[in-house]
């Protein structure tokens, strides 16, 4: 049944927004996409819906705004339960494990990836690269543990950790190309390489992924902007 009261405030390049869209697609929920023109301007709706952070994504369901991508994904999983698969496991311990690894992606892996994108000096980039590669190896281990031999972190179906990490794949590819390295390598992380292909090809994912070329272009501009803002003024 088509939902006419679901809106996503987002930007096309944001991996966090992508998480929300993937979750909605998984649940076959129709939504209205509202593209924000960040950072140049923030719509009144965004400022009203997320007064604390003024960031995307925001999910607006009826009159209710929900903020923070992983919280939004959990909300989507709890509201739309008629779908065949759930995003979070039903077992409490497995749920805690999924949340742990999603938090790892959020709190450890993503910041290292970001530092690699905006690294100003060769030294910064080298340090960030080492952290990112170490992160992929840790996640390869996590995949072994959680997937139990199946295609996704969530097992047979895309789950919470798949969404948390999979949403970063476009940026991982772009940043890797920038550094002339494959960040998710066959040598160190063969299972993740396979998983990345499965994830990107999934029904609920393939049509929402941003184009890598567009992302690469955006990445260069973003890096330049950030470095300019951080540079000491003469």
């Amino acid at each position, binding site marked *: 049944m088509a939902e006419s009261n679901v809106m996503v405030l987002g930007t096309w390049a944001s991996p966090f927004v992508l998480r929300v869209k993937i979750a909605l697609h998984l649940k076959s929920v129709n939504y209205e996409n509202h593209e924000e023109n960040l950072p140049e301007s923030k719509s009144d709706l965004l400022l009203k819906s997320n007064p604390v952070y003024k960031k995307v994504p925001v999910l607006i369901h009826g009159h209710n705004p929900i903020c*923070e991508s992983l919280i939004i994904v959990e909300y989507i999983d709890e509201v739309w339960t008629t779908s065949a698969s759930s995003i979070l496991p039903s077992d409490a311990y497995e749920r*805690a494990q999924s949340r742990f690894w999603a938090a790892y992606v959020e709190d450890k892996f993503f910041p290292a990836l970001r530092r690699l994108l905006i690294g100003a000096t060769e030294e910064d980039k080298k340090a960030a690269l080492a952290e990112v590669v170490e992160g992929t190896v840790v996640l390869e281990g996590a995949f072994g543990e959680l997937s139990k031999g199946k295609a996704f972190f969530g097992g047979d179906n895309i789950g919470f950790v798949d969404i948390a990490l999979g949403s970063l794949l476009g940026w991982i590819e772009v940043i890797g190309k920038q550094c002339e390295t494959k960040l998710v390598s066959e040598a160190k992380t063969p299972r993740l390489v396979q998983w990345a292909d499965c994830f990107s090809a999934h029904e609920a994912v393939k049509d929402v992924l941003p184009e890598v070329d567009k992302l690469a272009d955006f990445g260069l501009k973003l890096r330049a902007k950030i470095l300019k803002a951080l540079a000491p003024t003469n």
Partner: protein
Amino acid sequence: MGDEDVVLLDFWPSPFGMRVRIALAEKEIKYEYKEEDLRNKSDLLLKMNPIHKKIPVLIHNGKPVCESLIQVQYIDDIWPHKSPLLPTDPYQRAIAKFWGDFVDKKIYDLGRKVWTTKGEEQEAAKKEFIECLKLLEGELGNKAYFGGENLGYVDVVLVPFYSWFYAYEKCGNFSIETECPKLIAWAKRCMEKDSVSKSLPDQDKIYDFVLHLKKVFGIE
């Protein structure tokens, strides 16, 4: 219910550990408390939390759960009938998780800046710290607790920092109560509950601990 084997690896001044103590107390779960020496981490801690090597670690029937917000949600999931901490409505749950996440993102780091820095940096930290507490006061509104009539998830996540307030005030030379009287009233209300008062160390002890840390790290 049969005998549950619950162990908590913790460190007495940790506000993250306090969250888990409160949650377990609210649920009336008996557990073994193990104090960790963070300069000499036990084999058990390193085995149970190899990724972060941090406390608190909740070990339930031999299986580890790490990260305090995740632990509190896990405790609520496993023992849902006594003192439910998260609401049942998905939107209310999302709001509670949002504010729990806000506390996690802001309060610890800002508080730390207040007691470790001086001058302009400290003033900026104090200002932002108070702004965050005021936002939380706004969310509390006229409710007795963030959870409504009973202690809820956000209460459990935030109240441990109350034990650090005296230390922040002394180091930062300011009064949190003057700026945020409603929040202090809320904290005192929480402290009337055994589950909270027995889980939080004395404010003086935390201040002594902070003074000790300042000496060790050579912070003025």
